């Protein structure tokens, strides 16, 4: 298994400090390093390119304004940016889901449409810069991988995932645990 190419996207925490100091060049450096991955994550979670663009704009606005809030002891800059992007995307997904549920309860024809979860295998095929990670994920049993990706990308709660997969909640929790521990091992392996 080759090391993941995530190192290519990482930047030094000092760059974030420069952004906090209003360094436009540092900000451009952060954008160039993170935008591809963050846009891909936003697109994966929100499904619509225009939504993903809006989200990316929000994320980088926050990075520019709140770079001083970045704490290096809590992770690398990329992890900070990924977490920020994911949380904002989940907020959007849950907001849309709430609106659709309200429409449905009002008798509208709208239907709750959780984001389409593309097949992990197909996603991995398209991600040339994440082959190593994909390789690691592919070592996971398919059902574990599916559950883990739903937990990470869909914004669904435990019970919603269980409902979507028609599985007991305990099974969902167990699969998530197994998948996360596998990822942890992968991360430790390449650290």
């Amino acid at each position, binding site marked *: 298994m080759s090391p*993941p*190419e*995530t190192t290519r*996207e990482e930047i030094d925490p000092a760059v974030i400090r420069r952004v906090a100091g209003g*360094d*436009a060049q540092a*900000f*451009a450096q952060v*954008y*160039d390093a993170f*935008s*591809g*991955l*963050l*846009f*891909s*994550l936003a697109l*994966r979670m929100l499904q619509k390119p225009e939504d993903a*663009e809006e989200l*990316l*704009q929000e994320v*980088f*606005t926050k990075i520019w304004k709140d770079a001083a809030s970045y704490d290096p002891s809590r*992770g*690398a800059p*990329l*992890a900070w940016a*990924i*977490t920020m*992007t*994911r*949380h904002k995307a989940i907020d959007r997904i849950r907001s849309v889901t709430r609106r659709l549920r309200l429409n449905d309860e009002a008798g509208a024809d709208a239907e709750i449409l959780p984001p389409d979860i593309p097949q992990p295998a197909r*996603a*991995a*095929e*398209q*991600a*040339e*810069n*994440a082959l190593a*990670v*994909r390789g*690691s*994920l592919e070592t996971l049993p398919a059902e574990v991988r599916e559950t*883990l990706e739903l*937990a*990470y990308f869909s914004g669904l*709660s*435990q019970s919603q995932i269980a409902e979507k997969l028609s599985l007991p909640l305990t099974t969902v*929790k167990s699969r*998530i*645990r197994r*998948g*996360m*521990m596998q*990822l*942890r091992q*992968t*991360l*430790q392996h390449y650290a």
Partner: protein
Amino acid sequence: MNTEEREELASLYALGLLEGDELVAFQLALKQDPALEALVQELADASNLLAKSLPQHPAPASLRDSILQLAAPPVPAPAHECLEPISYAWAKLVPWAIAALLAIFCGFLSLGKSRSEAQITLLTKDNGSLQLRLAGLESERNRLETRVSTLESERNDLKVQVASLKNRDALKEVQTVLLAPQPGAPTGSEVTVLWDQRKQAGVLDLSKLPPPPAEKNYQLWVITADSPQPVNAGVLATDGPRAAFRAPRTASQVAALAISLEPLGGSQSPTTVFYLGRL
């Protein structure tokens, strides 16, 4: 909490899937268990591998420009480009302008002070002069008050004099007329009358008139210019030296007085005239 439970809860927490009581309990455990906290951090980092495994979709180029615009310094407006050097030049002149204004202001203050001092000196002099003038006026006032007092006194004297003169004029209206004895009158007798023409009254001096004979009276007559007949003015009482009388109202423009001897009680017209005098 066994190992599997710790890993399960830490995994769910790292993915943001813990809710309600489970979340609260786990957060409490996190605060008391640094190893658990480290595990959560590792799992959170590990979960990001899922994001890193995604096929990369570059963000639109236009989005880059839009986002990096956040950090771009504000572009000054064209008008500003022209005005800025001027504003800067003005800005440099501001302290000098303020200093110049202060100097001018101080000059005005100094000039004003000198003028004020000169005015104070003049006013002091004026004040002394006015004090002297006031003292003079006070003296003049006292003098005038004395003069007024004198004049008042003189006026009172003049009033007295005027009154005296008026009295003098009144006496002027009184004339002394001798009623001359006519034939048949007692020898050596005469009657004098003081006649006030304005009052149409008079006083007869009877000191030189002998008493009338028995059963006889002296009767006074008024002779007027417009009446051919003498007008009866009354029987004279001869018990005193003087007798006052007044001309009857019907007699106007008294021209003469006459006294006749008449029967007791008087007559309608004079019988024997003893004394006659023209006024």
